């Protein structure tokens, strides 16, 4: 009774939600500052491959996580330089990042293709709570990064809504010209949040390789999760809690096959894979209708470069 297929599916869905949640929370920060970064997939791959190399070389998984985050942040820096300082087209720059990052990760990862990582993140058992039926495996037998991700969503929600820098961030994303005229440094705000976004995408990639995927392979490691994370930000309408909830939903869609097979229902895996993308379109169309957009929509200057002298 303890570990039915449904419980195991939900527990697995929580794990599957984490990499997309991390990457999406990072993208949320970048987009809230007004910078659209389509390069998540590339940054996740680079984060994953560097984390593997460091973890494999040193055996220290936390160091691997940190270096993976730093490597992805370096890629994000390129995007920030192009889109903020040089005011290049953010869409083109982001896609270039995907192509470059995928090539780079595959190139660096060539020697380790298919090799498993010796160590694994240990799951935490939270005392007696872990033995509670149903809730135990779902909530209290996950690894530390799962809990850290929930804390991160809470921290970002607090930062955005209750702190002064968070207010500045929102101002920069909504109306950089106004923010600039009040003395805020638009460029620095954007740099900081694009870099933070890159680091979190790297964390998502690193988590994949450290906790979920048994070995490195370019096609198999992220398998399009970066794009799902991008969808997730829209699905969660730029709100950290809704992003976290959406991540669980998307994670469930990714792991539902296991349960459905057990229940004797056969839904083609491809149809389930379509769900996150189809749902995002629906959400965007419904919530994007003009009167609602004011309240739950995208930051007003998302995707637009800002130059003081060209207003």
């Amino acid at each position, binding site marked *: 009774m303890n570990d039915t297929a449904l419980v195991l599916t939900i527990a697995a869905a929580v794990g599957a939600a984490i990499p997309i949640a991390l990457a999406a929370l990072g993208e949320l920060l970048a987009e809230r500052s007004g910078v659209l970064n*389509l390069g998540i997939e590339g940054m996740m791959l680079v984060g994953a491959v560097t984390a593997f190399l460091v973890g494999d070389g040193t055996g220290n998984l936390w160091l691997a996580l940190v270096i993976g985050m730093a490597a992805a942040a370096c890629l994000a820096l*390129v995007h920030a330089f192009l889109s903020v300082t040089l005011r290049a*087209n953010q869409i083109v720059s982001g*896609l270039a990042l995907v*192509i470059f990052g995928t090539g780079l990760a595959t190139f660096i990862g060539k020697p380790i293709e298919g090799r498993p990582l010796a160590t694994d993140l240990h799951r935490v058992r939270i005392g007696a709570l872990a033995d509670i039926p149903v809730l135990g495996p779902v909530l209290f037998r996950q690894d530390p990064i799962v809990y850290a991700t929930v804390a991160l969503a809470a921290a970002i929600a607090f930062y955005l809504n209750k702190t002064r820098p968070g207010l500045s961030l929102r101002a920069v994303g909504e109306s950089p010209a106004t923010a600039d005229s009040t003395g805020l440094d638009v460029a620095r705000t954007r740099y900081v949040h694009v870099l933070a976004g890159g680091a979190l995408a790297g964390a998502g990639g690193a988590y994949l390789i450290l906790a979920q995927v048994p070995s490195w392979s370019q096609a198999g490691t992220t398998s399009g999760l970066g794009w799902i994370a991008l969808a997730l930000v829209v699905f969660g309408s730029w709100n950290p809690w809704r992003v976290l909830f959406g991540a669980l939903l998307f994670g469930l869609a990714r792991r539902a096959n296991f349960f459905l097979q057990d229940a004797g229902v056969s839904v083609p895996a491809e149809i389930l894979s379509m769900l996150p993308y189809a749902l995002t379109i629906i959400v965007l*169309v419904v919530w994007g209708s*003009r009167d609602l957009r004011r309240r739950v929509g995208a930051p007003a200057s998302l995707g637009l470069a800002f130059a003081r*002298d060209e207003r």
Partner: protein
Amino acid sequence: MNLGFQLHRRMERSLRTDILVPVVSVLAALVAGAVFLAVEGYDPVAVYRALVEASFTTWFGITDSLAAASPLILTGLAAALTFRMKLFNIGAEGQLYLGAIGASWAGLALAAELPRPLAAVVMLLVGAAAGALWILPAAVFRAWLGTSEIITTLMLTFVGLFLMRYLIFGGASFWRDPLATNFPQGRRILPEIRFDTFGTTRVHWGLVIGVVAVVVVWVLIRFTRVGFDMKVVGSSPAAARYAGIPVRRTIMTSLLLSGALAGIAGAAEVGGRAFALDPNGLQLGLGFTGIVVAALGRYNAWGVLIVALMLGGLRNAGTALQSVSGERVPEEVSQMLQGAILLFATGGEVFLRHKLVRRRKGAALEPAPAATPAEVAA
């Protein structure tokens, strides 16, 4: 951030900077790539020589590069057509898959009864229609609800990808090859209706279709009413509405045409190269690379053609590198270089419109010159 430099708008654009900037960007990317290769322990000179030899010096290298360029011309045009009017169809990848699905359906179901040239035409038309159909929801949402086409076209790409995988891997699918039992494959179209190749090369009619499309798009934008409307809507939707230009219809036209071009790219891939649905869809990345092509080609039809031929060579080199003796060069080098070139070119683009001016200490901000009419039109 004060870096001691300031970007100033150029008053006028010159042909010299128009050519110099992209060339310098590409060279800078190659230098950066060389440094990286050297750090990784490869001999950059040997790698680059191998790249050029593989793609541009032998007859088969050149013709294979042309074959690799064919779909990129079409997806590049698909991106250019919308990007230049500040609509961002980034889902050419998905529209290409739908084009491939439509064309292989037409090839399998209809074409057996048709004479050869007609079969090709039917496949291309069905492919174009399928591609246009795939962008239709995004176009309607954009034109009537103002929903961002960036996200919807991207999302539809992945819905299209999984639809294609379902048609290949799904048990009783019409598109599935019933004979491929070990690893599912798309069902191949009959050899009689495959596109002709030229001589012993892999160049097929897709290249001709691509070049024709370049001319058509150029004429459309340069000489027709629709093209003019697109330009006005791109620079200022408000002005266009005021001038009586049907903004919604123009948005629909350009997005649907873009989808159709990407669909034709998919159809030509089925007719001329793959002959069946390809489960590796995303790894080829023809649609996404089309955006790269359009950006490097400055969203101009002829620019797209030139860049597509160049990138086609680079992509082709990726596979050809494996067979070059001597230096063991991983084929991923070509993809990394593509990305690097694109990043540098994207950054370089700013210098077409601006020049870097050293900011003097203590000097007041110089007033920026207003945009010239030429820039507004561009």
